[in-house]
C-alpha cells in the first residue's frame, strides 16, 4: 500500500517537474526565435560553420581512406550525430553553459529558491539560439547519411535509441564539469576546458581510437559515447554497445546529481543583489 502510494506520488511529482520544465523550455525557445533576423542568421551561420568540420574530416578520409571500418559515410554519420546531440542539449538544456558563471559571480542564490527540481531548473535556464542551427544541421546530415546508406526503419529506431543516451551523457558530463566551480574558486574556464575535451574528442573519427585511448575516451571522458559508439551501433549493430551506452548514461546522470548535491552543500552565497 505504502509502496503504491509512494509510486503514485513520485510519478505525479515527476510529471509536474517535466510539465514545468517543458513550459520553461518552450518559453526559452520562443524568446530565442523572437528576433527573427538574428535567429535565422545564427541558425544558418551555425549550419555553415559545422559544415566546415565535415569538410575537414572528409578531406582526411579522402587522404587516408577507410581506417578500421571508418570511411566517409561513418564520418558523415558522426558529424550528424554530434551536431544533433549538441543541438538538442543546448537548445533544451542551455543552462549547463551558465552554471559555472552563476556560481562564480554569486547569482546562483536565486536558483536555490526554486520550488521545483534544482537540477531541471539549472538545465532549463536558457536556450542557446545557435544550437537550434546545430540541431537542424545534425538532422540534415543524418538524412543525407540515411539516403546514402538506404537506412532501414529498424536502423532508424536503433539510431534514436543510441542518440537519447548520448544526449543524457553529454548533458550530464557538461553539468558535472560545471559543478567543478562549486569546489574550486573561479573555475569557469576550467569547467569549460573539461567540457571542451569531451566535445573536441567526440568529433574525431572513432576508428582512430584503439587500445588504452579507446578505454579512456569511453569510461573516463565518455567522448566516444557521444558520436562514435552510436555510429558503430548503427553501422554494425551490437547489443553490447547499446546496453553499454545506456548504462554509461545512467552513471553520468547519477554522477551529475551527486556532484550537484555535494556542490550545493559547499556553496557559499555571493550576496549578490539583483532584481528578478
Amino acid at each position, binding site marked *: 500500500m505504502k509502496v503504491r502510494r509512494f509510486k503514485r506520488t513520485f510519478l505525479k511529482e515527476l510529471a509536474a517537474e517535466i510539465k514545468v520544465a517543458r513550459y520553461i523550455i518552450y518559453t526559452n525557445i520562443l524568446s530565442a526565435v523572437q*528576433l527573427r*533576423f*538574428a535567429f535565422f*542568421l*545564427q541558425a*544558418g*551561420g*551555425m549550419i*555553415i*560553420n559545422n559544415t*566546415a*568540420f565535415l*569538410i*575537414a*574530416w572528409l*578531406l*582526411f578520409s*579522402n*587522404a*587516408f*581512406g577507410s*581506417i*578500421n571500418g571508418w570511411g566517409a559515410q561513418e564520418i558523415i554519420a558522426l558529424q550528424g550525430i554530434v551536431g544533433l546531440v549538441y543541438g538538442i542539449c543546448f537548445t533544451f538544456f542551455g543552462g549547463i553553459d551558465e552554471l559555472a558563471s552563476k556560481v562564480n559571480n554569486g547569482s546562483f542564490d536565486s536558483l536555490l529558491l526554486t520550488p521545483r527540481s534544482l537540477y531541471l531548473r539549472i538545465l532549463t535556464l536558457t536556450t542557446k539560439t*545557435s544550437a537550434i542551427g546545430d540541431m537542424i544541421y545534425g538532422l540534415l546530415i543524418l538524412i543525407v547519411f540515411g539516403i546514402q546508406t538506404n537506412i532501414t526503419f529498424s536502423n532508424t529506431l536503433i539510431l534514436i535509441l543510441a542518440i537519447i543516451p548520448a544526449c543524457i551523457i553529454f548533458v550530464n558530463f557538461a553539468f558535472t564539469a560545471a559543478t567543478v566551480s562549486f569546489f574550486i574558486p*573561479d*573555475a*569557469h*574556464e*576550467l569547467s*569549460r*576546458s573539461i567540457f*571542451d*575535451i569531451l566535445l*573536441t*574528442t567526440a568529433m*574525431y*573519427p572513432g576508428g*582512430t581510437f*584503439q587500445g588504452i*585511448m579507446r578505454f579512456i575516451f569511453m569510461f573516463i571522458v565518455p567522448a566516444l559515447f557521444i558520436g562514435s559508439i552510436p555510429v558503430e551501433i548503427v553501422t554494425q549493430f551490437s547489443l553490447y554497445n547499446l546496453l553499454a551506452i545506456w548504462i554509461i548514461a545512467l552513471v553520468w546522470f547519477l554522477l551529475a546529481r551527486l556532484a550537484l548535491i555535494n556542490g550545493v552543500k559547499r556553496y557559499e552565497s555571493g550576496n549578490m543583489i539583483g532584481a528578478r
Partner: protein
Amino acid sequence: MKHKKPGSVRQHIAKYTAITAVTLKETLYHRNKLISTVFISTFRLIMLALIYKYAYAYLGTTINGIDQTTAVWSIAIYHILLFTQFRSIFRTIKSEHQKGSLEVQLNKPYNYLVYKCFEQLGKGIPNLVINLVISIPILIVLVGPPPALTPLLAVSALLLTICGTLVSAAIYACISLTNLWIEDAEPVFWIVDKAVLILGGAYIPIALFPPRAQTAAHFSPFGAPMFATKIFNPNFAYEWPSLLLMQVVWIVVFILLTHTYYKATQKVLAINGG
C-alpha cells in the same frame, strides 16, 4: 632640447606597444584563463598527433610525399600560430558595441582598430610562448623531432608568419566592423574563421588536400594567414616567394578594404549610450 613632433611614427609605436605591454601583464595575471586556454589547445594538438600517428601506421605509407612527422608538425604549427592571430578582436568589438563602451574608445587619440590589434598581441604572446614550451617537447616524444630546416628556410617561414599575422589582423579587423552594421554578426565570424581553419590546415595539412582545394588554399585570403604551416612541405623552397606575394597582395587589399569600411562605419555608427 629637440621636441618631437606630436604624432610621430616613434610616438605611435611607443603608444601601441604600451597597450600590448599592459594587456600582456593583465593576461599573465589571469592565470586560470591562461592555463585553460593553453591546456585545451595542447590537448587538441596531442589528440590530432595521436590520430595522425595511428592513421599513418594503419596506412603504412606516405601521402603526396608527406610522412607522419611532417603532417603532425604542419598541424602543430597551425595550432601554435593560432595565438598570433586576431580572432578575438571580433568578440571584443562585439561586446564593446553591445555595452556601448565603443563610443568612448572611438573618441580617444588612437586608431580604434590598431588599438584592438595591439591589445590582442598582448593577449596572444603569453599563450604562444607557453604553448611553444609545452607542445614542442610533447610532440617530439610523440612523433619525433620536426624535419631539419636550413637557416634560409627558417627565415622564409618567419617572414610568412609575420605577414600571415598581418593578413589575419586585416581580415579579422575588417569583419569585426560588421558588428556595427548588423544585429548579430557572429555568423559572419564563424564562416570566415572556419574558412581559415580549413584552408589554413588545422585538421589536415594542405599538402594532403586534393589539387583543387590546394589551389583554393593558395589563392584565397583565408589560406594566407597560415601559409607558414607549409614550411615542412618538400617543395616549400620553390613555393615560398609566391606565398609571400599572395600575402602581400591580401595585406594591401584588406587594409584598403578595412580603411574604407571603417570610415563608412564611423558615419553610420549608432551609439547605445551605455
